[in-house]
């Protein structure tokens, strides 16, 4: 899709869900094989630059997921991992779950983008068990994807609804994987995990470094070339 004009929201305005997904999509390289998790990560497919050829993997057995089928035209026996009736792109293939997870665990996917409850400065990820008193557990493919993909990118809000930090020194929720997260996109910043340190690469305009540090429960290092995190207006004006 064509890139809409850059927005000019008030200084310090956090990114929307679509803008976080857009930012994550800009890092998907031409020729990449990519698995997108449910929720915000799947939105990234809408925002990857059109000139790049990207193969989306769905762990239920698709390499080359195309757009969601038009209403009434989908095949209920052809779905993605999010249960959407999808189409297949040129060059796509379908296979069973054993082959799909051999692809994942064997280190053949370039990037997985996942959601998270918490990410620790050492690269630990917690995203499967919310410790609910009433609901059952759900692991799905997250443990295999985060262990197997060459790069693990996370999209999550910088804090919980209650304002608690999600970027932490040590995860308090049960872990999905240890030490595998490379990059985190939040509504306030883009951070890399390097040698057990959170390195801020981009920060939204108008947010001071100490303000970002105050909502992060782990030490921050600001890259020497730390830039402004600016995304286009994808939500019809703010």
């Amino acid at each position, binding site marked *: 899709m064509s890139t809409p004009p850059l927005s000019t929201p008030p200084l310090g305005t956090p990114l929307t869900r679509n803008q976080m997904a857009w930012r994550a999509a800009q890092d998907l390289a031409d020729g990449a094989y990519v698995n997108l998790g449910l929720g915000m990560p799947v939105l990234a497919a809408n925002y990857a630059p059109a000139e790049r050829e990207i193969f989306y993997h*769905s*762990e*239920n*057995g*698709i390499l080359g997921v195309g757009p969601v089928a038009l209403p009434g035209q989908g*095949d*209920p*026996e*052809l*779905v*993605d*991992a*999010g*249960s959407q009736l999808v189409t297949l792109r040129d060059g796509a293939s*379908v*296979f*069973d*779950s*054993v082959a*799909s*997870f*051999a692809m*994942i*665990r064997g280190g053949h996917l370039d990037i997985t983008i996942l959601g998270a409850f918490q990410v620790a400065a050492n690269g630990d990820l917690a995203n499967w068990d919310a410790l609910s008193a*009433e*609901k*059952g*557990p*759900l*692991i*799905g*493919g*997250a*443990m*295999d994807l985060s*262990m*197997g993909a060459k790069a693990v990118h996370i999209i999550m809000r910088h804090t919980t609804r209650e304002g608690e930090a999600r970027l932490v020194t040590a995860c308090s929720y*049960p*872990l*999905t*994987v*240890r*030490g595998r997260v490379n990059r985190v996109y939040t509504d306030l910043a883009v951070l890399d995990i390097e040698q057990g340190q959170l390195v801020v690469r981009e920060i939204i305009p108008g947010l001071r470094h100490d303000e970002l540090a105050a909502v992060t429960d782990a030490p921050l290092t600001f890259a020497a070339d730390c830039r402004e995190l600016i995304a286009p207006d994808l939500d019809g004006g703010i």
Partner: protein
Amino acid sequence: MINKVVGDLAAAMAGIQSDASIMISGFSNAGVPTTLVRALGAMNLTGLTLIMNAARRIDECDASLFNDRRVDHVITTAFRGPEAAPANFEQQWKRGELSLEILPQGTFAERIRAGGAGIPAFFSPTAVGTSLVEGREQRDFNGQTYVLEEALTADFALLRAQKADRHGNLFFRGTQANFGSAMATAARTTIVEVAEISETGLRPEEIHLPGIYVQRVLQAPRQDQIA
């Protein structure tokens, strides 16, 4: 002469008894053997072990399966209902009426594959360092730690495919295969519902699962998951 095609549901489900272990294929709405699952629910068995990717899909297919202590043990990757309020099966687990083994999806698939391939156990990197594998046997290879995972087998596997022939050869459509092709290899009796029976036989090159793994085939139209 080999003819694995059965004429009715009773013949398809024959021999399934209480305390059986049953693998059920399906991911989301694809490859779910809806007709067979509903027949299983109507058999009023108890003490079943169900091995399936997501409890929710089977519950949507036939909610009665999780009534009356029919299911004793579940091996799955997703044990969560779609609503904020707990589903019947979640409540039963919280009350201690059924036991649960929750697995990463790739480990689930590979344990079933191993079960059908004569491999009793294997080492996997998935879930190492998490609470899931605490206390389990681990071993280092080339500087990385792996956890020992044991093969999974079952008494029965219930599958859905698009096409079969009298030899039990299967052709899957779209993403129907998912866990089904491995489950068929890991179960002592594999029962498949299909949309079409090929009278002339499937072409060798279009066979996704050879008939050696399939014992019974029933023609049944695809039903919507939610009754």
